[in-house]
C-alpha cells in the first residue's frame, strides 16, 4: 500500500511500487489531465509537482510519491484562477493543447522561484517541455504576463 495526497485528497493504493506515477495518476486515479508523450522524460507532457517540485511523472516510480503531496493540472487551481492559467487564456496559448498541462506545471514552479523571470530564465525552465504545435512564443509572453499579474497583486 502506497499513500500520498493528490490535489489535497489522501489516496492509498495497492500498486507495484515501480509503476510510473503517470500511469497511476491517469488510470487508477482517473486524472487524465496529465499526459503521456514520450515515457522517457524527454517531452514534459507528464509534468506534475511532488512537494512543489516539477517532476516528470512518466519516469518517477510511484514509490517516490509515498508520503508526499502531489499536485496535477487539475489541482493547479480549482477555477482557472492561477495567474498562469489566466495568462494562458489571455494570450490564446494552446493549439492542440496536449502538452499544455505539462507546460503550465513547469511554468508554475518557475514563477514561484523567479517571480520576474527573464527570457533566459524561461528558456532554461521550459526547455524540457516540447510543444509540437509551436506555441512557444505565446508561452513566453504568457509567463511574462502572469509574472506581471502577480507583481501587481490580486493574484496568488
Amino acid at each position, binding site marked *: 500500500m502506497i499513500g500520498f495526497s493528490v*490535489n489535497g485528497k489522501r489516496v492509498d493504493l*495497492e*500498486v*507495484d511500487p515501480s*509503476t*510510473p506515477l503517470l*500511469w497511476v495518476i*491517469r*488510470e*487508477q*486515479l*482517473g*486524472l*487524465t*489531465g496529465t*499526459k*503521456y*508523450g*514520450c*515515457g*522517457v522524460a*524527454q*517531452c514534459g*507532457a507528464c509534468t506534475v509537482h511532488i512537494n512543489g517540485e516539477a517532476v516528470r511523472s512518466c519516469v518517477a516510480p510511484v514509490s517516490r510519491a509515498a508520503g508526499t503531496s502531489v499536485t*496535477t*493540472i*487539475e489541482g*493547479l487551481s480549482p477555477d*482557472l484562477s492561477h495567474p498562469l*492559467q489566466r495568462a*494562458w*487564456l489571455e494570450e*490564446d*496559448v*494552446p*493549439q*492542440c*493543447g*496536449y*502538452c*499544455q*498541462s505539462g507546460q*503550465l506545471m513547469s511554468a508554475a514552479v518557475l514563477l514561484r522561484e523567479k517571480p520576474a523571470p527573464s*527570457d533566459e530564465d*524561461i*528558456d*532554461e525552465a*521550459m526547455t*524540457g*517541455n*516540447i*510543444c*509540437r*504545435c*509551436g*506555441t*512557444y*512564443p*505565446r508561452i*513566453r509572453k504568457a509567463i511574462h504576463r502572469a509574472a506581471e499579474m502577480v507583481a501587481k497583486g490580486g493574484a496568488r
Partner: protein
Amino acid sequence: MTQIENVSRRKFLQGAFGAGAFVLAVRHARFIPSILAQGAPLDWQSEADRAAFHPNLFVGIQPDGTVYIIAHRSEMGTVIRTSLPLVLADELDADWKRVKIDQGIGDKRYGDQNTDGSQSVRRFFTTMRECGATARLMLLQAAAARWNVPAAECSTELHVVVHKASGRRLAYGDLAADASHLPVPKKEDLQLKKPADWRYIGKGAKSVDLENLCTGKAVFGMDARMEGMVYASIEHPPVFGGKVKTVDDQETLKVAGVRQTVSIDPFKPPAAFQPLGGVAVIADNTWAAFQGRKKLKITWDNGPNETYDSAEYKKELRETSHKPGKVIRSVGDSDKTFPTENVVEADYYVPLLAHTPMEPLVALAEFKDGKVTAWAPTQNPQAVQAIVSSQLGIAKEDVVCHVTFLGGGFGRKSKPDYVAEAAVLSKKLGRPVKVVWKREDDVQFDYYNAVAAMYMKAAVDEKGKPTAWLQRSVFPPISSIFDVTQVYGDPPHLAQGWTDLPYDLPSIRIENGPAQAHVRIGWLRSVANIYHGFAVQCFTDELAHRAHRDPVEYQLDLIGPPRTLDFTGVTYPNYGADYKTYPWETGRLRGVIESVAEKSGWAKKKNGKGHGFGFAAHRSFLTYVATVVEVEISDDGTIRIPRVDTAVDAGIVVNPEALRAQFEGAAVFGTSIVRTGEITAKNGIIQQSNFNDYPVARIHEAPAHTNVYITESSAPPAGVGEPGVPPFVAAFCNAIFAATGKRVRDLPLSSNGNFD
C-alpha cells in the same frame, strides 16, 4: 496493479476526479431534413439533431434559445471547432455566447471530414453560411406568421427577429417550435449577408475549448475510457511488410496485469490504412501492456524491405535525379539541348520526416452485436468507418466513430491504421480495447513524409537571370501505399510547389523521376511543398547571390509582371480547388513579397558575420506567403532565430488570431525540419525511436518572435494550417547562408552541417 474503475450508467467514463466533456447515450435515429443529407442516418444523434428546430444537419435551436452547431471537422489545434461554427453563427445572426458546439461523428452526410490539406474553411465556408441563412430565414418566416405581417418587413438582430414598423421582437428560442413546422427554403431563396454586415467573420473568436485545454479537462483520445475495457500495446514487425514467424509469450504472461497476447494478421498489400500486424499484449493497464511487450520473444520474417538502407537510398535518388525523367511541364523550347554556357547546378535533399504529434497514436473501440463504436483522435472519421468496416466485414454505417480532441495530427491521424487495430482486437476479445502506441512505435511505424532529391539547373544571362531552367524531383510517392507499383510522383503532390513554378522565363522544364518506396509514405503538414519549396526557393537565392542581386528584387524579376498562370495542357490539380475560383495569381505572390519586404525593413538589413537574413516566398494550399527569417550563429555553432516576419494572403480570413497562431507554429515546425528532422533506416529498420534521437524544436531553439501580416482580401478563403512551413524552411536556410556563406542543400543541419 489493479484497475479501479468508476462504473456509472454512462458508457463513456471519466475518471473519479475528471469532468465529462462528452456524453454518449443511446440515441434513436429520426428523419432529419437537410440541405446536405445523403444516405441513411447512423444510430446516433447530435445535440443539433435533438433540438426542437433543426433545419439542417449542422444546426439546432432549443426553446431556451441555445443554438447547437455541429463541428464536423477535427480539432487538433487549428481552432476549427470554433472558426467554422462561427461562420454559421454569423449568417444566423446568433449570439455567439449562446452557441454550443457539438462534435460530429463520422458521417458522410456531413460531406468531407478529412481534416487535412488546409481545406476546412475553404470547403465549407459557403455551406456553413447557407446553413445559417436557412435557419435565420425560417425563424424570420415564423415570426412574420406569428405577427401576420409580410416576411419582407421583418429582419434579424442578435438572436431576435424584429418587426421594425411595430417595434415587436421575438427571441429565436421562442420561435424554434414554430419554425420547425415550416418547409426548408430553397437555396435560391437564401440571402447571404454582405461582407460589410459580417459580425464574426474576419473578427474571429477565441477557441471555445480554451478553458478545457488549460485545466486538463479536454478529453483526448488518450483519455477515452469505456466500461470493461482492456489495454493493448502492439509489437509491430520491425521492417515494413514483415511477418511474425514465431512467438514465445511465456515471460510476458508472467508480468502482473498482463492478460494474454493476440496475434494480428499482417496486411495484404497495398498497406493503405490496414493494421501492420504483429503481436498485441492485452493488459489491465497501459504500463503492464508496455512491460509485457519487453518480455516477448518474437522471430520475424522481414521480407524484401530488410535490404533498405537510407544512406544507399539517398545515393540512388540522387543518381536518378541526374537522369532525364518524366516531363511534367515544359515552357518554351525546353526540349532542345540545354545551354552549356553560364550554367548553375545544385542538388537538394530532404530526408524522411516523422509527424510525432504530442499525443502518440491511440484508439478505443468496442465491437458488439455486429457493430463498432470507436473513440479516436482521428483527422478522418469516415476513413475510420471505411477501414474498420473492411477489416471486420461489417457495413460502414455500423461503425460509429466519435472524434475526441487530437493531441496534434499533422497528417498522421488521417491514416486510421491504429483505430482498425483497436476494432480488430475488440472483435477477437469480445470487449472494448484501447490500443496505445508508445512514442517509439509512433516514430518507427509512421507514414513518413517522402525523402526527396531535387536536381536544379539554370543557364543565366549577363544579369544573372535564367534563360533556361530545369528542375527534377525524385521521391517515393504517397500513392505507393495504395498501389505498390507506383514510383512516380502523383499529380496532386507534384503540383505542390513544383509543377506550378511561377517564374516568367523563356524556357522551363519540370521533371520527375521514379523511386520505389520501402516504408509507408504519407502526407505531413505541407507535404511535397516542404522539399519542393526548399529546392526552388534556395536555388533562386543561390542565383540571386551569384548575380550580386538582392534576393527580393531578383525573385520579383523572375516572377515577372502580375498574371494568372496558364496550365493549359498541364496536369495541375490545384489542391482540388476549381481553377476559376482559385487561380494562381502571381500578382498576389508579388503582393506578399512586397509586404514582407516593407514590414521587415528588408532594404535596411545588413548581413554580417554570424548574423543574416533570409527570404523566401511560396504559394501552397491556395495561400500566398512570403517570409523573412533572421538568424544569429555563434562561434560554437549555436543558432538563434530572433525574429521571423511573414506576410500572408489567404483570401477572406475568418479567424485572424487563429491564422497568426498557425503561422507562428509553422515557423517552429519548420525549425524542427531544418535543424534535426531526419528518419533513417538500416536493414529496413528505422533507427530513431523517441525525442532523444528524433529531436524537435524546443523553446530556446524556436523563433523568439514571429510577426504575421495578413493581406486584406475579398478573395475566397484559402488554407491556413500548412502554408507557413515551406517558405519558412527555405528562408531559414537562406538566412544561414547570409550569416555564414555556407549553403544548406541537404537537410537537416544536424546531419549535414556543423551546427548543433
